[in-house]
């Protein structure tokens, strides 16, 4: 099991969020990418899409399956990682770096308190794997 960066927040659905001020960079965790297998397509949302926490943010397609990625926080999509449309394998190779998916403008900062720390996420992983 690789290390999940301490500065990130996590969900039980295996998304991560890097929160800086009123913005959050979002991606999927190393655990998620390794279970999905080779990722072949990331169906990114349109810019400006408004979304509530827990709703489907985008769809990740791997050779095995297609999975929803849920919004870890409520807000608006203000940037998407267009590099993934040509190189979706970045999600496998570098899930916490080049494999980021969207940047959201956070609507309700309080929601961030409900997210898991890296320690909590890892202890959650130990209960399911």
């Amino acid at each position: 099991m690789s290390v999940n960066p301490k500065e990130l927040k996590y969900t039980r659905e295996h998304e991560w969020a890097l929160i800086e001020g009123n913005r959050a960079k979002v991606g999927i965790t190393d655990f998620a990418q390794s279970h999905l297998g080779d990722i072949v397509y990331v169906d990114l949302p349109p810019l400006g899409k408004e979304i509530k926490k827990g709703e489907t943010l985008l769809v990740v397609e791997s050779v095995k399956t297609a999975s929803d990625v849920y919004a870890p926080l409520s807000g608006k999509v203000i940037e998407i990682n267009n590099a993934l449309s040509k190189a979706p394998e970045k999600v496998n190779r570098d899930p916490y770096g080049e494999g980021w998916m969207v940047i959201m403008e956070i609507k309700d900062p309080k929601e961030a308190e409900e997210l898991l720390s890296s320690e909590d996420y890892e202890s959650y992983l130990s209960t399911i794997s």
Partner: protein
Amino acid sequence: MRYLPLTDADRKEILASLGMESVEELFSDIPPEVRNPALQIASLSEPELEKHIKELGEKNRDLAELQSFLGGGIYQHFIPHAVDHLSGRAEFYTAYTPYQAEVSQGTLQAIFEYQTMVSLLTGMEVANASMYDGASAVAEAALMAGSITGRKALAYSAALHPQYQRVLRTYTQHLGLDLVELPWTEKGQTDLDALPEKEFSALILQNPNYFGVLEPVAEASRVIHERGGLFIYSFSEAASLGLLPPPGSLGADIVAGEGQSLGIPPSFGGPGLGIFATREQFMRRMPGRIIGEAQDAEGKRAFVMVLQTREQHIRREKATSNICSNQALCALRALIYLSLMGERGFRAVAEQCYHKAHYLSQALEEIPGVKLRFRGEFFNEFVLTLPQEPEGLLNFLLKNSILGGIPLKKYYPSLKQEVLVTVTEVHPKEDLDKLVYLVKEWRGGLK
């Protein structure tokens, strides 16, 4: 598979487990008006039964005996015998899409080549492995446009095949869509000026339309694109693609039509072949199966099903469509037909359809009291206005072993005296002249 008939005791047990008293109760959800009446066959010996069935069969009248000018979605075209022979070979003869690529290379290659042919015919970048028929293809195209644009309003022409309209409404009835029907002009074309100010997901036009009239396709495509909607091009007469510009070149985003004309007999009005194609940018929103070319472990060319992750068995309720199958046997027939006809042969069929239909329409128009209803240019079908409702003429023609056309009032109450007449390459000139002669004779008898 063994066939084991149920005993009365079995039936009782099954019904009891369902909490029902009778078989009748089991089928109570099916409205009585659409049920087949029970076959009234008394207990017969095998030879008696055979005789009885033969007598029933002899009541059918088929196209070997009758001359038919019926079209309206199902067409009689010449089918080379090699289509029957090749598609009937045991290696090919299945209606199913093969799941197991390693034992199904022949079938997968045939579907891959079918997709290539559809791409060429329609001028689109990607085609799927086929859908059930033109009607379901149109309905799936409407759902796809909704999912791409996120819009709820959908415009379609009143001259879209009326049965496609019905299927479209059935498919979308619980989705809360705002379906807007556009009327037709005096020329028999869709009235694009009638498009209200709404955010439409798409405009669906059939070309040639149900009246056989050619639509202003490029104009329609421009109008809907200006509004940010998609343009869906439909057709019920695939032979028209031999003569008309490919819809992809006119701005179509989705092409959804009926491929029965491509080597599939009219039968009893089905099965058909749903042709479906789109632009590459919408590929992942396309319903149905897609066969792709790949390489096996030894680097040899191989064919596999691709993009399956969009489909129902993986994505469940989030799938792009609930269609996980295709019309494999009919698609195979279309492929063999197109391969045998070639580009020139296919064009020749379309030219004959066009010229013969125009020859007939001109001759019929000269008969007093018989008029062409619409002035728009047409392909191989046209609408006649008769001096009275069409039954009299159609019955007279049927007595002379001719199926004269489709009365339109069933679908369009305002077209009471109108009949849709279709001509294809199968009609020799004598048949056309005979029809004209008989219509004249019938007209002379009217006073």
